[in-house]
């Protein structure tokens, strides 16, 4: 995934802590091999290659993550869509190139989660149309954090924190008996990446943030970022950043993307329906929160 992964654990023995951390890192590497869209023989690449041709036999983890991706698509009215690959690959966020309108329109018919089917009995996945492309970038980091935490727990770690490029899952309490303190990045930070706008204390919870500042560039005064609306193929407007809090990292990750695309009003409604917590910074910089979270997030005075 070429991202920064940090694992912190609380343990009375250095050896068992290191062993647990190593096992958790191997778990994340294993998942990366399955889901990586750049690597030609990952399971996701095999499904992509066989789009419109045949079903592909896949592992339990791939079935699981696709199942969760489809669930989030349904709950966000398709705003989160793992089949966004056919359009997102038209953008080059390194070279700062946005595609022609005609090529976006052409590939838009290849974006639709309803054409992705999984068969749990046969352990297979299938993309119905040739040229369709799964990109799990919006869910795999949170899913990896979930699995890393499960791995730590199996190795008898009772407290720790896993962060896969900012998709964070924390469990247990710190040695001082306090919950883990997470900073939410200021979407319009000037200069420093660790400029935070708010903090929240968490335990046995995951948190993810999607922002228009990651993987983005400005062309002709317009900001192009990777959070594409599956209906238009263009970057979603309406939010600067969306942070989601719930138990599962796969859901915080994918809902952060989906809610970003839905926008602040619809987003808060969807979160309330799901029973998730969230903090949304809209395009004007105004902060919206779910009712439950008020009082738990500590906002820093804006500078």
């Amino acid at each position, binding site marked *: 995934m070429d991202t920064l992964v940090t694992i912190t654990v609380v343990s009375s023995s250095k050896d068992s802590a290191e062993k647990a951390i190593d096992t958790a890192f191997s778990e994340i590497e294993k998942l990366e091999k399955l889901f990586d869209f750049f690597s030609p023989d990952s399971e996701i690449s095999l499904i992509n290659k066989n789009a419109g041709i045949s079903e592909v036999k896949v592992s339990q983890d791939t079935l699981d993550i696709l199942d969760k991706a489809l669930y989030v698509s349904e709950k966000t009215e398709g705003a989160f869509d793992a089949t966004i690959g056919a359009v997102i690959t038209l953008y080059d966020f390194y070279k700062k190139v946005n595609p022609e309108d005609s090529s976006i329109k052409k590939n838009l018919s290849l974006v639709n989660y309803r054409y992705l089917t999984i068969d749990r009995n046969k352990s297979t996945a299938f993309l119905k149309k040739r040229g369709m492309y799964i990109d799990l970038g919006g869910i795999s980091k949170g899913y990896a954090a979930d699995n890393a935490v499960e791995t730590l727990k199996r190795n008898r770690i009772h407290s720790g924190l896993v962060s896969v490029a900012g998709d964070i899952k924390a469990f247990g309490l710190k040695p001082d008996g306090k919950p883990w303190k997470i900073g939410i*990045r200021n979407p319009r930070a000037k200069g420093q990446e660790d*400029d935070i706008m708010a903090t929240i204390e968490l335990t046995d919870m995951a948190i993810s943030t999607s922002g228009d500042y990651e993987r983005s560039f400005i062309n002709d005064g317009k900001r192009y970022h990777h959070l594409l609306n599956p209906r238009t193929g263009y970057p979603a407007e309406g939010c600067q950043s969306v942070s989601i809090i719930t138990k599962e990292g796969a859901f915080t990750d994918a809902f952060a993307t989906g809610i970003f695309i839905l926008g602040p009003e619809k987003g808060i409604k969807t979160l309330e329906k799901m029973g998730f917590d969230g903090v949304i910074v809209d395009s004007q910089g105004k902060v919206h929160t779910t009712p439950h979270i008020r009082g738990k997030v500590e906002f820093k005075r804006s500078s």
Partner: protein
Amino acid sequence: MNLKGLLNSTTIADRILLFILILLSLSGIFFIKEVLPKGQIVRIEINGHPVYLLPIEKDRIVSVNGSEGNTIVEIKNHKVRITESPCDNKLCIQQGWIEKGSIVCLPNRVVVIIGTPEDESNKRVDAITG
């Protein structure tokens, strides 16, 4: 006594002393600006362990030995980039010059971070999302 009267009542020795004092206080500004670092530090880590802490002001090229081989990091004009890496995808090189944030080369376990030496906000939280 007004200012003019005050100046008239000084001796040459007084004036020389005054001049030296002004010079000394001005040199303090120069001293602080030139000698103390301006805050931005380039931190290079291998496997999560810091191996270099370098001021961003000074242009230089350093080579660090990651898990797959040598990564070359270049600091120039307050910017940082990776020019050579043994990894397959070369995403770290493609990222080009950065003025803030970080470059991560996962295959070679090398991380280059630009930050302030003692970041207050960083110390107060256990992790940052976003």
